[in-house]
């Protein structure tokens, strides 16, 4: 076994410039995936953290003996909310809420550091300041909070709240100040889970693609090893070892990338506030889990890609028309989409997440099939050489062509889904500040999710384009040598990406809109349509630009005139 590892390591190191380039592409791809995966995970922990830290303000009625009374309402300083918690102690000795060392007595207040630093608020909550609320009791940095002490009979701790349910809670007798996360906090966690699904699925697809990035070259090398007598087990072990070593390096680099990105990420405002650095740090265990899971997934994906070599040492030496993919893929997608109209606001978050995730994955399953069909049509109707080459290439390896565009196509799903749900900017909410926040947050969330998806999509298409040049360098070099213009090769490459992109991108947007329909209460808004339009334009531009970036690589691999067997 150690011999095998040593050989793997030698092959990795001895891959030469092209091999090194291939491994670097994989590392970069895995690094970007890992960083974004960590972000998707952290988002959930961040919202959970906010919900926990703010729970003490939302009283839960005492089941047994009441020891205190708690009431909550939101004041405003301009547009900035001030959380005011009125408390009265019924029985001395009740533990203070998190972030406070003791409860304010009647005539006393405890305030957050931000409130203490706000001169406009001096005197609005009269009383002796007896404490400052620590970070663990604040939802976000800079939050304005006041805890005002009262006697049990005071109006503030006995009146019923008559305003907007999102802006206050009636006085409640409580046993302690543990509280429960507010319904808003729960709703945000729900949205965070949906956003994570949107970000994680393309990441998984991209991660899988990363593993197979340079598979053509590796396949050939491992087929040679099979020919000299390596057992299937040894070949699989070497593949896994190589993929896992590379992926682990990528995952560690991804962690570093993510760490660098934390400070700017904490500045994204949601519910009127930014984030603590610790919010964006999901903790040692989740990070360790990601660092472990990413290389394992990449290894698994590499093994799947190698099935053919293991079956036959000649498997990749001979290029034959691959067996056609079955229509069942389309049936799976249709079956999942059939469930969608049954969903609505009443369905639990788990079901929604599963259905959305499945629709997403099914799109990924249908992708290569559709690309194959498009390829056949393109090849049949092609008049010029570039279109013919593009079409035949799509038929030859629809999966690889799909990998180049899958990111953007899947983002189309997200864009379609969100485009339908984006609230109009001119929606008249009047003085309803709570609704205004929610709408603003949905817009912010949309931008973040779309930015992440597009980043994945564009990086993935750039990397797959580069790796496809590397994998097919011999073909390109020979074509160049026989007098083919670089422009024809480039046009073929562009068509090979653009044709499936247009078809699958459109299909995915439509699927996304279909999945969003049960939740769309506000109708299609101008803002949503604009978001969608910007997404489509940005996605196309990004993919074309990413593909153009590999043009110098194409030029460099085709300048070496002597074809070599590799």
């Amino acid at each position, binding site marked *: 076994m150690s011999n095998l590892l040593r050989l793997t390591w030698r092959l990795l190191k001895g891959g030469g410039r092209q091999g090194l380039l291939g491994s670097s592409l994989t590392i970069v791809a895995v690094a970007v995936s890992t960083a974004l995966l960590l972000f998707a995970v952290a988002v959930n922990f961040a919202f959970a953290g906010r919900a926990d830290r703010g729970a003490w303000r939302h009283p839960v009625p005492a089941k047994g003996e009441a020891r205190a009374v708690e009431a909550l309402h939101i004041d405003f300083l301009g547009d900035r909310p001030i959380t005011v918690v009125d408390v009265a102690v019924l029985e001395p000795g009740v533990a203070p809420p998190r972030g406070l060392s003791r409860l304010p007595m009647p005539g006393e207040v405890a305030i957050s550091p931000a409130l203490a630093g706000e001169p406009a608020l001096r005197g609005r909550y009269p009383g002796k300041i007896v404490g400052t609320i620590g970070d663990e009791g604040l939802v976000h940095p800079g939050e304005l909070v006041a805890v005002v002490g009262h006697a049990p009979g005071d109006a503030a701790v006995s009146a019923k709240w008559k305003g907007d349910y999102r802006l206050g809670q009636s006085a409640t007798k409580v046993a302690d100040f543990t509280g429960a996360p507010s319904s808003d906090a729960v709703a945000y966690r729900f949205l965070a889970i949906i956003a994570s699904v949107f970000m994680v699925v393309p990441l998984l697809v991209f991660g899988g693609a990363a593993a197979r990035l340079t598979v053509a070259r590796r396949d050939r090398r491992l087929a040679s090893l099979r020919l000299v007598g390596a057992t299937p087990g040894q070949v699989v072990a070497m593949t896994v070892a190589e993929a896992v070593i590379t992926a682990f390096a990528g995952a560690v680099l991804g962690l570093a990338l993510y760490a660098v990105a934390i400070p700017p990420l904490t500045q994204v405002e949601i519910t009127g506030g930014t984030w603590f650095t610790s919010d964006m740090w999901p903790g040692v265990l989740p990070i360790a889990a990601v660092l472990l899971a990413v290389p394992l997934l990449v290894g698994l994906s590499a093994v799947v890609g190698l099935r053919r070599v293991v079956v036959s040492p000649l498997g990749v030496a001979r290029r*034959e*028309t691959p067996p056609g993919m079955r229509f069942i893929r389309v049936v799976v997608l249709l079956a999942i989409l059939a469930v969608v109209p049954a969903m609505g606001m009443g369905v639990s978050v788990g079901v929604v997440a599963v259905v959305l995730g499945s629709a997403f994955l099914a799109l990924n399953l249908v992708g290569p099939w559709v690309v194959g069909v498009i390829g056949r049509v393109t090849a049949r109707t092609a008049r010029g050489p570039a279109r013919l080459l593009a079409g035949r290439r799509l038929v*030859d390896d629809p999966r690889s062509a799909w990998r180049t565009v899958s990111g953007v196509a899947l983002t189309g799903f997200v864009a379609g889904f969100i485009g339908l749900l984006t609230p109009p900017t001119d929606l008249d909410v009047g003085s309803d500040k709570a609704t205004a926040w929610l709408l603003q947050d949905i817009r912010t969330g949309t931008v973040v999710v779309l930015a992440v998806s597009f980043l994945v999509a564009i990086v993935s298409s750039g990397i797959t384009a580069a790796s496809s040049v590397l994998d097919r360098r011999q073909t390109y070099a*020979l074509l160049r040598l026989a007098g083919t213009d670089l422009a024809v090769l480039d046009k073929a490459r562009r068509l090979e990406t653009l044709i499936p992109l247009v078809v699958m991108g459109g299909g995915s947007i439509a699927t996304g809109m279909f999945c969003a329909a049960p939740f769309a209460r506000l109708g299609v808004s101008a803002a949503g349509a604009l978001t969608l339009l910007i997404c489509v334009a940005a996605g196309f531009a990004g993919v074309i630009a990413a593909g153009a970036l590999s043009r110098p690589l194409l030029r460099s691999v085709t300048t070496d005139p002597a074809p070599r067997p590799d």
Partner: protein
Amino acid sequence: MSQIVLEGRDLKKSFGPTVALAGVDFVVHRGEAVAIMGPSGSGKSTLLHCLAGIMRPDSGEVHLLGQRIDTLGERKRSALRRTRFGFVFQFGQLLPELPADENVALPLMLGDVPRAQAVQQARSWFGPLGLAGMEGRRPGELSGGQAQRVAIARALATRPAVVFADEPTGALDQATGHDTMRLLVDATRRNDASLVVVTHDPEVARWCDRVVEVRDGRILTGPPHTGYVTPAGLPNAGYATTVAPSYTGHVPAPQVPQESPRGWRPEAGER
């Protein structure tokens, strides 16, 4: 002596400290088949690359039909390779994703021949080259010898002035190699093209009219070798005598013997 088609004069080429060509003069006449022989590293492939406009020599001149081509820009040399030269390599020159007929049609399509016409012309090569029924097969589904014959068809499809072959039988067994060489030499000659074959195999070289030996970047002078003799009385197709890529789209039907390939295996004495 017949017309000179391709000429290299005092060609020199170095790669860093390594001298690949140290002043080579080389001439190919119309319809002639010349073998360039030499051991590995002798400079024979570099000579082919310089003659074919793939590479520019450091000094010296290359003339095609009297016109200097080594000074042309990359774009013009590309066009020249596409229209006036054909290439057959040891392996890998066929695009794995295209069926055989489209592989042959590709250079025609690159020259703006409409697809249907290009494919039709491409297919007309299959029968004479013993490839009938193989039109729709992909390179992975062809044997080594069949793939080389498709490559020969592709090299000749554009009616080139010169066909360059680099170790064309290197990946084939001896019998298939002989068949392939015979087809290559015959088909080239019948289409009035010249042939330049780079090889290290004397058996391959014997198919050619003349053998040039290269050692350490120089041509060895020795007694001229006479090899395979063209069967007389077969029609030649003729080719345009301009260098400029003047490809207009119309290509006459391929001129190869109409018997089955087995029928034209040379007698033992002919070799």
